[in-house]
């Protein structure tokens, strides 16, 4: 475009009009053309051709409405613009126009009504500038700005979402409850640490990369009562059907047999349209609580078993059984035998087939004296090995076969508690953890110790009961025998008194001479003496059963006492056609209690007379070796069965089962009491059918040696 100053100097109106006409024709940046008063195109320039795409011959004479969009045309916009321009002289706008090729252009339009010098309306001048590119650039800029704003917003939103998600993740991962999320197809899409742990995986990632089958092959899913829990009824699966539920689930790890208890709740997660998209399962583990409950239950069951029976062996076996599998995989009861060896009273094992293995073990490898069981027995202190390490097995077991078995059995943890009765260990309870993989802790030891304490108490009770019962039985026996013994002299007295009373009443008493009466009173007196002696003896025995025997020592000749005793029995023996003989050799003197020794010899000779009546009886008294004196009493009676020979010196035991011979079963017991009180010993040598020989060996003693050390219970 020429600069205005270039037009300066152009002289004359005519020349100027030509130049203007050339300008209009040649300007390419503006479409400059003229419309006749009807709106038909009357002129066209290069700019118009460039902008609109039409050649002059294509548009001259055509209505300028062809440049409008169809909508504008139908709306009558072309005419309205012209009317506006006519009315106001000028009209300008920016708007869409259409090129020849149908494409749109954004045009800045100025329409000017043209009047000649006389003021006559001649048509319109129209100048159009193509602003499409500008407009597009503007549009682009606007869009770009909007886009940028949107993107910035999206970024903010995303960051916020990520932050919220990370936070949620962190919360879910770290809460104590196990959380698992399943997709519609049952695959796991989320798991937290606790869930991974519960499913025996090292991390949630490992769990999520495993298949469903891999996950469920690791453990058995059980109901609380131990029955199988159908997988399709698990709360997580039910949630996929839209149901919310909670269940107690017991997971038993197949590898170790260890069990875990959980409250499991499942809830569906719904889409916007209300269909189930996911299911969320939450596991709250309460294994420790269940363990504690089981431990207390075991304690209660064991206590009930211990209280239910006085047969403590059967009871301890029951306790061993109850301990498995609640607190142990193996349990055992060992009882200390009198010779100091251990007797395995009971073994229980989760797997009954391994119980025999446990017995075999004990047979092959008895507990070593420095081992845990004997340590517990010696110290009365319970012991705990939380973890049996391979090093311990290597160090503690010398036999390679034993070591191999220990590894095979997977021994992991062990507790041994003492059974204590009367402040002495009588045995131990052993609890072993193996298959279950559990490791005992101090609280387990507390429970085990309590079981041991209660078992000990039960044993003590059982023993006390059994002793009390034995004592009552013994006393009953004694009372029966004593009352029988007392009845005979009482019978004589009763007959005598009632007979005299009847005679007096019937007037027959006068028939009796004074001599006959004297004779009767003398007999009554003898029977009273006999009665009194019996009562004294019973009191003596009763006294000696509970108290020490007191000795009144004096220089005594055993042969002399034997002679006196024999003299008392001689009549009876001779009456029955027997003989009784004393053979005394050497000095038979010693410091003894004369009346007790008399009692002792009387009992031995009395027995010989009772059982060996009618046959020869031989008594010997002789000086024995190294300050002892020996007494023997031999009869040729029926003898004593071998099985009775070691108990005839017990209280209320008799040498014969015979009903025909009276006796209280106290004589030999008294003999032993008296002999041992003097520091001596008594024994019997008897062959059934050939008679018996009782031998007493008494130390000579000294004046000042009251030797009673024996206690009544021995």
């Amino acid at each position, binding site marked *: 475009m020429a600069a205005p100053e270039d037009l300066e100097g152009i002289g004359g109106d005519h020349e100027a009009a030509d130049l203007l006409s050339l300008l209009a024709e040649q300007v390419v940046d503006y479409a400059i053309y003229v419309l006749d008063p009807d709106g038909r195109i009357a002129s066209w320039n290069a700019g118009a051709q460039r902008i609109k795409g039409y050649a002059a011959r294509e548009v001259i004479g055509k209505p300028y409405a062809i440049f409008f969009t169809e909508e504008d045309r139908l709306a009558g916009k072309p005419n309205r613009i012209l009317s506006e321009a006519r009315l106001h002289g000028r009209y300008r706008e920016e708007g869409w126009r259409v090129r020849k090729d149908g494409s749109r252009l954004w045009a800045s339009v100025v329409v000017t009504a043209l009047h000649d010098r006389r003021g006559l309306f001649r048509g319109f001048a129209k100048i159009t500038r193509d602003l499409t590119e500008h407009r597009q650039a503007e549009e682009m800029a606007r869009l770009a700005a909007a886009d940028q704003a949107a993107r910035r917003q999206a970024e903010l939103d995303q960051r916020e979402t990520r932050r919220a998600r990370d936070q949620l993740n962190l919360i879910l991962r770290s809460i104590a409850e196990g959380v698992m999320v399943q997709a519609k197809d049952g695959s796991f899409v989320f798991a937290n640490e606790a869930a991974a742990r519960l499913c025996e995986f090292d991390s949630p990632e490992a769990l999520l990369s495993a298949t469903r089958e891999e996950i469920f092959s690791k453990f058995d899913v059980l109901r609380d009562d131990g029955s199988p829990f159908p997988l399709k009824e698990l709360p997580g699966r039910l949630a996929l059907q839209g149901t919310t539920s909670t269940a107690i689930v017991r997971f038993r790890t197949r590898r170790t047999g260890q069990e875990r208890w959980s409250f499991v709740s499942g809830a569906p997660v719904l889409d916007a349209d209300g269909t189930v998209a996911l299911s969320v399962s939450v596991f709250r583990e309460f294994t420790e609580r269940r363990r504690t409950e089981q431990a207390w239950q075991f304690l209660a069951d064991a206590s009930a078993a211990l209280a239910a029976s006085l047969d403590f062996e059967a009871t301890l076996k029951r306790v061993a059984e109850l301990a498995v599998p609640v607190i142990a995989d193996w349990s055992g009861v060992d009882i200390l035998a009198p010779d100091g060896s251990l007797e395995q009273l009971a073994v229980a094992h989760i797997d009954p087939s391994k119980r025999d293995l446990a017995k075999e073990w004990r047979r092959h490898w008895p507990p070593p004296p420095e081992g845990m069981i004997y340590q517990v027995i010696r110290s009365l202190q319970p012991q705990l090995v939380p973890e049996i390490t391979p090093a311990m097995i290597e160090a503690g077991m010398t036999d390679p076969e034993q070591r191999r078995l220990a590894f095979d059995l997977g021994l992991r943890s062990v507790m041994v508690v003492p059974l204590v009765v009367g402040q002495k260990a009588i045995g131990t309870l052993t609890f072993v953890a193996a298959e279950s993989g559990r490791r005992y802790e101090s609280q387990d030891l507390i429970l085990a110790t309590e079981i041991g304490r209660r078992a000990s108490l039960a044993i003590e009770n059982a023993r006390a009961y059994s002793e009390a019962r034995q004592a009552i039985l013994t006393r009953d026996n004694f009372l029966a025998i004593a009352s029988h013994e007392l*009845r*005979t*002299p009482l019978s004589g*007295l009763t*007959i005598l008194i009632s*007979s005299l009373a009847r005679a007096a009443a019937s007037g027959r008493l006068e028939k009796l001479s004074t001599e006959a009466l004297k004779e009767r009173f003398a007999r009554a007196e003898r029977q009273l003496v006999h009665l009194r002696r019996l009562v004294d003896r019973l009191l003596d025995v009763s006294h000696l059963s509970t108290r020490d025997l007191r000795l009144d020592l004096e220089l005594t000749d055993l042969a002399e006492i034997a002679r006196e005793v024999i003299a008392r029995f001689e009549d009876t023996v001779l009456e029955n056609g027997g003989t009784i003989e004393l053979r005394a050799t050497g000095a038979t003197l010693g410091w003894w209690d004369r009346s007790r020794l008399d009692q002792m010899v009387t009992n031995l000779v009395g027995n010989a007379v009772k059982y060996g*009546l009618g046959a020869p009886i031989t008594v010997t008294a002789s000086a024995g070796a190294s300050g002892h004196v020996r007494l023997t009493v031999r009869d040729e009676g029926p003898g004593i069965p071998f099985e009775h020979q070691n108990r005839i010196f017990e209280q209320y035991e008799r040498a014969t089962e015979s*009903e025909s*011979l009276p006796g209280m079963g106290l004589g030999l017991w008294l003999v032993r009491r008296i002999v041992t009180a003097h520091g001596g010993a008594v024994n019997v040598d008897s062959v059934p059918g050939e008679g018996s020989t009782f031998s007493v060996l008494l130390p000579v003693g000294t004046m000042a040696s009251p030797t009673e050390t024996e206690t009544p219970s021995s």
Partner: protein
Amino acid sequence: MTSGAHSSEYILVVEDDRDVRETLCEALILEGYSVVCVENGRAALGHLLANVPPCIILLDLMMPVMDGWTFRSEMLKFPALASVPVVVMTAASAARAAAAAAKAILYKPLDMGTVVGTVQEYCPHGAA
């Protein structure tokens, strides 16, 4: 062996305790019976086999040499003796006394009233 006053009817007492035996026999004589007293089953059996049977045998059970139960089973081997009535005198239990298959059981300590009451049933002519 002690003899009473009259008739061939007599009581056989078998008791090992000398005081009881002598007291009982004297008391029965005082009551008017004839009495034979022995100290065990063997002596009693010997007496029965050599003499006319008594109207009653008062038998102690626990005795040396031959006890009351053995005596009863030995006695029953002789048809002539099987019908002689036997009354047991004992401090033993009823069940054990019953094993002697006696007409009656008298429990020790014995009272003469009871003894005479029992004896009268079997020896009606003895008492004066």
